């Protein structure tokens, strides 16, 4: 036990002496959270649009004004004819062109019906969808106003919508829990995998082997400093989320920390597993990259909803630990879920963790004979 505590202390010293790495390790989560918290948005603000007004009357001017006044749009171009649309889109900045047909007001007054065309640059389907629906909403509201003049309450169906858990539909509320998962994955799994492989590559593993330390002690000693680091990072992220981004925290902090620790363990287990399989740091890193970074970002539901993915991918996503952690964290932070609601996800994480721990211990022994 004595040699073990000595080893652990040595590992701690080794990491905490390396100021450059330490700065990155503690600074990274802060910078990432601040950058992404403010920058990653799904809402559209100030999308550049063009107007092709073939009528130039009172009504089209009013609608144009309403579009320009909306926070979502910025009118950057007034076109003269249809041929200019292509060129504008080619340059890549204009996302939408609104075309009013000739004699717009006249038709609206006489035939009660006029056409407006919304042309979007749909290379980005999401953006195209959003700008189109914003524009339609503004036009519909205008028509509603137009029809309602002098009328009392309208008959018919009114829909009352209540957005649960995130009434203002803030992206940040969605992304912060995701970032916690990405950052923990990065630091816990990646750092561990590299740190153990490093000993192999540099030949130090032989020295560790002839020491009285058992393989599990070596692994534990390697993993502990990163566990501490990760917990500190969780606290940092949480403080930033609360006080800088005002992400609500409905659930229990105790539960949150317990679950975060579990997820850190999962990530560490993965890291150890990768390092037991890889011979050098480069391989370890590329494997973590392929197996952890992109899948964590893309398949966990961090940015894209899992339910939108094709069914085979939804199956694959079950094997991504971050997916379960995200459900847990979003549950605790936004819904105030108690353990009763997330025990299944917790159990799965425990399962994944145990699986990889067992696997890497087994592999580790074989390699160290």
């Amino acid at each position: 036990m004595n040699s073990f505590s000595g080893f652990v202390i040595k590992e701690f010293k080794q990491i905490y002496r390396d100021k450059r790495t330490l700065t990155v390790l503690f600074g990274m989560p802060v910078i990432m959270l601040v950058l992404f918290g403010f920058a990653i948005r799904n809402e559209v603000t100030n999308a550049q649009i063009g107007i092709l007004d073939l009528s130039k009357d009172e009504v089209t001017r009013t609608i144009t004004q309403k579009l320009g006044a909306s926070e979502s749009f910025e009118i950057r171009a007034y076109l003269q004819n249809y041929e200019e649309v292509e060129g504008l889109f080619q340059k890549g900045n204009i996302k939408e062109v609104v075309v009013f047909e000739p004699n717009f007001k006249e038709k609206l007054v006489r035939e009660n019906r006029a056409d407006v065309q919304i042309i979007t640059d749909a290379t980005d389907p999401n953006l195209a969808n959003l700008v189109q629906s914003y524009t339609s909403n503004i036009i519909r509201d205008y028509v509603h106003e137009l029809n309602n003049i002098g009328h009392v309450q309208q008959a018919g169906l009114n829909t009352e919508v209540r957005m649960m858990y995130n009434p203002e539909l803030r992206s940040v509320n969605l992304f912060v829990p995701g970032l916690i998962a990405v950052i923990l994955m990065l630091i816990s799994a990646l750092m561990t995998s590299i740190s153990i492989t490093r000993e192999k590559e540099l030949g130090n593993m032989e020295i560790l082997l002839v020491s009285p330390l058992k393989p599990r002690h070596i692994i534990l000693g390697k993993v502990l400093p990163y566990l501490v680091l990760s917990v500190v990072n969780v606290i940092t992220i949480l403080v930033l989320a609360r006080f800088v981004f005002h992400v609500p925290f409905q659930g229990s902090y105790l539960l949150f920390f317990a679950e975060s620790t579990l997820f850190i363990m999962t990530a560490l287990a993965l890291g150890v597993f990768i390092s037991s399989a890889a011979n050098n740091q480069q391989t370890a890193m590329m494997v973590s990259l392929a197996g952890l970074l992109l899948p964590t970002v893309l398949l966990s539901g961090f940015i894209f909803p899992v339910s939108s993915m094709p069914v085979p991918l939804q199956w694959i996503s079950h094997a991504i630990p971050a997916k379960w952690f995200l459900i847990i964290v979003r549950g605790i932070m936004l819904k105030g879920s108690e353990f009763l609601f997330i025990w299944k996800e917790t159990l799965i994480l425990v399962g994944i963790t145990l699986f990889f721990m067992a696997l890497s211990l087994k592999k580790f022994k074989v390699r160290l004979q």
Partner: protein
Amino acid sequence: MRIIRVLLRKEFLQIFRNKAMLPILFVMPVVQLLVLSFAATYELKEVDFALVDMDQSSLSRELTSKFQATGYFTLELETFDQGEALEAMDAGLIKMIIRIPPDFEQELSSGQPVNLQLIIDAVDGSTAGLIQSYSASILGDLNAAKLAELKMEQANQSMHQAKMINIIPQNWYNPDLDYITYMVPGILVVLVSMIGVFLSGMNIVREQEIGTIEQLNVTPIRKYQFMIGKLLPFWVIGMVDLLIGLALARYGFQIPFLGSLATVLVVAGIFLIVIQSLGLLISTMTHTQQQAMFIAWFLMVIFILMGGLFTPIESMPEWAQNLTLANPVAYFIKIMRMVLLKGAGWKEIQFMVYTLIGMGSVLLIISINRYKKTSG
């Protein structure tokens, strides 16, 4: 020239001798492109909902079946207890609750305003927005149909004829709003960048860490020869990966290929130099592979998430948009999409290409100057 050739031979041998590396270099990008391109979609596929139908009329049934008929909505739970429905939402089983009030049909057909309540799980704000707009259009249609019926019945009363602006949407370049078309070129850029930054960056630090760089330093190899020997192999690998990816995009994903392949390749070549120079710079600033890799990761995550790949640059705040001006990945993603999907030519992209060339030159000069043949 001979020295460079020998060096290149040695580097290539070293790369290809490592059996674990080969699949990582050539299979991993393909698998990732295949898998991840399908994952990156905001499209609404399946929304499980609960129905709290206090009316139980033919109209409420009609409404429910209209929702289900779209193929997006699946009725998961039917209950008279709103609390039960909310609990199901808490547990994450359903995304939406439709609450139909008592006397719904009766009041609507007598021409009174009726309130229908939709409760949507908005943890994911953008999905919630989509659910809302889909529902709004279903309900809007139903409402219009009912009002028309109502008008027929009250034909003798003078009804105000509503004005209408007919909205005709047109989606250019991607009429089906297909996400794959949009994501594949971007994800390809990310994969190529990773190979560029990580491999070339770590390669040199590795020689430092293991100590083999001393041996190279005592040889008469010139600095630039050493650099070429280190950079060229991964440049070639990056280009090969890009070609495989492009072929996959073209023939596997049926991505339109409107622009010229030559343009894409030239830009890719320049981009890889930029990104490799960055890797080189990182490796001259660090002492261990661990440090190098960490900084490279950190930068990559920022480059990717702020490169306009997943969330549009347009929706970022102004300062963040300005930051993307220094992000080479953002330029290449934009160029790829413009050239492949819109058929943009040199005229449209030249400014971005010059910027990339500028970045590459600066990074390369700094990193070559920082690399010292004498260590310590």
